[in-house]
C-alpha cells in the first residue's frame, strides 16, 4: 500500500473500531499474496452488521489469528497490523475482526 493511499484509508478506521457483527461466510486463506505471506494461513470473513436504526449491512474483513471462523461467530472490529512492512517503510494497520466468544 502506498503511504498516501494508507493515509486516506486510515480515516475510515474510527467508523469501524468496536463495531460488532456476526459471521455469515468464512474461509481460510492458505496461499497468500506476498505482503501477507507471514500471516498465512489467515481467515477471511463476511460479517453482517445490524445497526439499530438501519438495515443490515455486510462487509468483508481479514480475521485475527490463523484458524477458520464459523458461520454464526460473534465478532468485533479491531485495529491490527495488516501484513508486512512494505518497501516504503510503512507498517500497515487496518481493521480486522476478532471473535468475541459469543455465538
Amino acid at each position, binding site marked *: 500500500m502506498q503511504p498516501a493511499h494508507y493515509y486516506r*484509508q486510515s480515516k475510515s478506521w474510527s467508523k469501524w473500531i468496536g463495531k460488532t457483527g456476526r459471521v455469515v*461466510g*468464512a*474461509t*481460510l*486463506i*492458505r*496461499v*497468500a*499474496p*506476498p*505482503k*501477507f*505471506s507471514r500471516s498465512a494461513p*489467515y481467515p*477471511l470473513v*463476511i460479517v453482517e452488521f445490524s445497526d439499530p436504526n438501519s438495515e443490515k449491512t*455486510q*462487509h*468483508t*474483513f*481479514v480475521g485475527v489469528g490463523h484458524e*477458520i471462523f464459523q*458461520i454464526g461467530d460473534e465478532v468485533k472490529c479491531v485495529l491490527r497490523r*495488516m*501484513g508486512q512492512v512494505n518497501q516504503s517503510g510503512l507498517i500497515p494497520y*487496518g481493521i480486522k475482526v476478532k471473535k468475541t466468544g459469543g455465538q
Partner: protein
Amino acid sequence: MTISVLGKYTTNFGELWDQGLRGLLFEAIDGALMDADLQPKQIEAVFVANKAGGSFSNKRHLSSLASQHLGHFPPATRVEAACASGGLALLTAEQALLSGQFQTVLVVGVEKMTDAESAETTKILASAADMINEYGSTFPGLYALLAQAHMNKFGTTREALSAVAVKNHRHACQNLKAHFCREISLEQVSHSKLVADPLRLLDCSPISDGAAAVVLTTQKVGKKARVLAAGQGQDSLDLASRKSLTELAATKRAARLAYERSGLKPSEMQIAEVHDCFTIAELLAVEDLGFAKKGQSGQMTLEGKTTYDGKIVINPSGGLKACGHPVGATGVKQLVYVSELIEKGEYKYGLTHNVGGSGATAVVHIIGKS
C-alpha cells in the same frame, strides 16, 4: 445486420517460456488473419483484451502495438474488465460493427502471466477484487466464500466440485491447444492441497500464457459461424454488497439479454464455454445460465449431464481449468472454440460466458450457424 466470425485462432495455452507478451499478441493476430484469408489492411479497427500487461510485463498501450503490427495503423482500443476483458472486447467490437462505422474488425485477447512468481501473480490477480473493501483477499478466497454458501444452502458436495475438474480435464485431452492434457481423478482433486477452504489446488484454474483472436465482419460470408446475440451484466465489485452469494446476478443479467436478443432459450444451447475459474464458478454458471435449476448443478454434473451424451456439453475445450486461463485471452478463445465446433457442423447453437472479478462483470454470447 449479421456478424460473422470470418477468422479465428488461438495460440497454445500454457507455460510458454519462449514467448513474451508481444510474441503471443502478434501470433494470434497473424493466425486469425490467415484463417480469414485477409490482408492486414482489410482490418478497419482492432480491439485488444488484456488484464494486466502493465503488472506482469510492465507493458501498457497494447492497442497501439496491435495497430502497428497490422501495418496500416487502424484505430485501436484496449478493453479491460479483469477476466471478462475478452468477452467485453468482443462486445465492444460488435457495437462498433453495429454502429455501421466499421465492417470488418479484429479482436485479440492476450495475457502473459508465467514470468512472475506465484505470490506476485496472486497479488496481481487480486487487484480485480475490491482493493479497499476486500483488502487481504485473494481470488481463491472470494470464490471459496461462494462455494461455502452454495454447499451450505443446497448441499453441493465436495465430490460435485471435483467432478467439474475431472470432466474438464477429460474434455481438454481433445484440445491440442490446452494447457493440460492429463486426466485426473475425483480422489486427486478432493485430496489436493487446500488453497482457501474449501477450495483445493485442483479446484483452481492454472496460471497460463496465451492469446486468441477473431476477425468479425458484417459483410456477407458463407459457411461461417455467426454471433447471434450478446449481453452484458454488472453487479457489485465486492462480494459483501451482493444480494445473494449463491448466484452471480451479473451472469443472469447478461444471459437474459443474450437470450432475449437471439430469441433462443437455454434448452436450445447444445454447447457452452463457461467461466470455470474455480470449479464452483462452473456450478454457479450452469444454474445462472438456465441449464440447471437452482441448487441442481452439482447433481447434474455428477450424473454426467454436462458432458457428451448428456444434456449439454459444458466446456468442451476443457474450460479455464484444463485449457488454461490467460486472463485477457479466455473470452476470445471461448468464441474461437464454439465457432469452430459450429462451423464443423457438429452443433447448431452454442454459448460463451465470461466473468470478471468475483462476478462484477459478465458477458454472454450466443453463436449459431450461418
